């Protein structure tokens, strides 16, 4: 089988594994959507709050399905010796990782789609104003946060530590990056941190794609792309099979 065919086989296998893990499916998929519905129903009385919330939860969905899921799963597979076993077969490393990361990418795309659909169907938010921008930022976000997830797995010592490590990043970052409220309302110091990290910029780009408004997204694209390049380098350079 060619490397491309093997990557496809691995992708299909990963899809099967994903749906067989109800708790992962819940945390990756349902929890962000549940938060969206709860917060939108409880607090978002007008359109402007929804305009912050919908892109915010879409960004959080990208973070959860790529960064958190990959960092966690890679640590587990490495700790259990599954990566080492794969390394001993003729499966090309690139084909394996393409299938594995491709599955996370599909989750991210599904998540963004679901968030947008729920926003429209339940809360009357308009369909995306700039679909090309939305697609572009979703893909850029996936590359950035998938690479960060792989790179981050290198510093997680073992399986037991994985939830603590990933949550130690995930929770503070969604808190300061304007997922549930605009990050413009934060104190200057925290805003500075959020500005330096990629999630806030991803959400800005998604916001332009979904809500529109004509704001400049050049800086946002550059920051996410810079993080993506650095993370990709670290992910490849320090990859460990065991």
């Amino acid at each position, binding site marked *: *089988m060619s490397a491309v065919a*093997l990557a496809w*086989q691995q992708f299909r*296998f990963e899809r*099967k*594994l994903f749906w*067989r*893990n109800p708790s992962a499916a819940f945390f990756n998929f349902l929890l962000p959507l549940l938060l969206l519905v709860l917060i939108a129903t409880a607090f978002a009385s007008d359109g402007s709050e929804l305009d912050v919330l919908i892109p915010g939860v879409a960004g959080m969905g990208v973070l959860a399905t790529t960064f958190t899921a990959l960092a966690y799963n890679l640590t*587990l*597979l490495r700790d*259990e*010796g*599954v990566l*080492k*076993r794969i*390394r*001993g*077969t*003729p*499966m*090309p490393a690139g084909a394996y990782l393409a299938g594995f990361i491709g599955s996370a990418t599909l989750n991210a795309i599904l998540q963004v789609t679901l968030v947008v659909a729920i926003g429209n169907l339940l809360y009357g938010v308009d369909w995306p104003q700039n679909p090309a921008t939305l697609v572009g930022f979703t893909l850029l976000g996936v590359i950035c946060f998938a690479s960060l997830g792989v790179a981050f797995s290198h510093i997680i010592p073992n399986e037991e530590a994985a939830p603590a490590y990933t949550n130690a990043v995930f929770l503070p970052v969604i808190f300061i990056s304007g997922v549930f409220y605009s990050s413009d309302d934060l104190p200057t110091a925290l805003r500075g941190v959020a500005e330096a990290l990629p999630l806030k910029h991803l959400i800005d780009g998604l916001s332009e794609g979904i809500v529109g408004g004509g704001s400049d997204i050049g800086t946002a694209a550059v920051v996410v792309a810079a993080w993506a390049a650095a993370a990709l380098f670290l992910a490849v350079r320090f990859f460990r099979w*065991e």
Partner: protein
Amino acid sequence: MTDLHKAYGPVEAVRGLSFEVGRGEVFGLLGPNGAGKTTTVEILEGYRQRSAGDVRVLGHDPETRDRDLQQRVGIVLQNCGFYPRVTVQEAVEHFAKAYDTPRDADETIALVGLGEKSDARTKDLSGGQRRRLDLALALVGDPELVFLDEPTTGFDPAARRTAWGVVKTLKELGKTVLLTTHYLEEAHELADRVAIVKDGRIVAEGPPDQLGPGSSGYRVSYISAGSRVEHQTDDPTELLHRLTRDAIARGERLEGLEVTRPTLEEVYLQLTTEADSG
């Protein structure tokens, strides 16, 4: 493989190991824990880079991780996990895809004796069953050469017999097997040739029956004045002649006279403890 060296920082795990394994042969690396067996095998498998020496596996340098080589090799590692939430059947079928000419998945599962467990999830397997699945995943590519790193450690005696049966089947199929073990019985039962490894060096090598350090091939013992006297020799004929002649000259009998060849276990213990004191 000639003069293999592997150092981890200042620690030399393998210090000048050389051996050759012929096609269709079962070769055993026998030694205590920490002797350098796993390091050696993992270099041959392509997991580690050697510090020095020349290594060829089926004509390839394993360090280059050539895909053509990996198509022809099956690896059973120590302590290696499975994909979670898949059945035995699914795991074997999935791994088969990476090979150009795989064995049939059902046939492979039957070969290792997991036929009744093919629909069981991997997490529900017992220790022995997990080891058999390890073997199935190593064999599904129909390899010419199989590496077995301590394949039966932690097995109960019945499971060990079953695993030995599988290794013997591999030999009948004409596969070359490189096996590491710290069980003497296992090396004796399975290997055509054994190398005893201690502190990163081979201290003895040969067919298990004929293994013996050069200086003490035979042991001649008898009881004299109530205690057992022991001689070690490569030439028991000459020694016996001398001992019996002297005894007859003194008008004595050599009580409890015995001539024995050391067992593999004795050779092993002697060699590994000798190296300890050296």
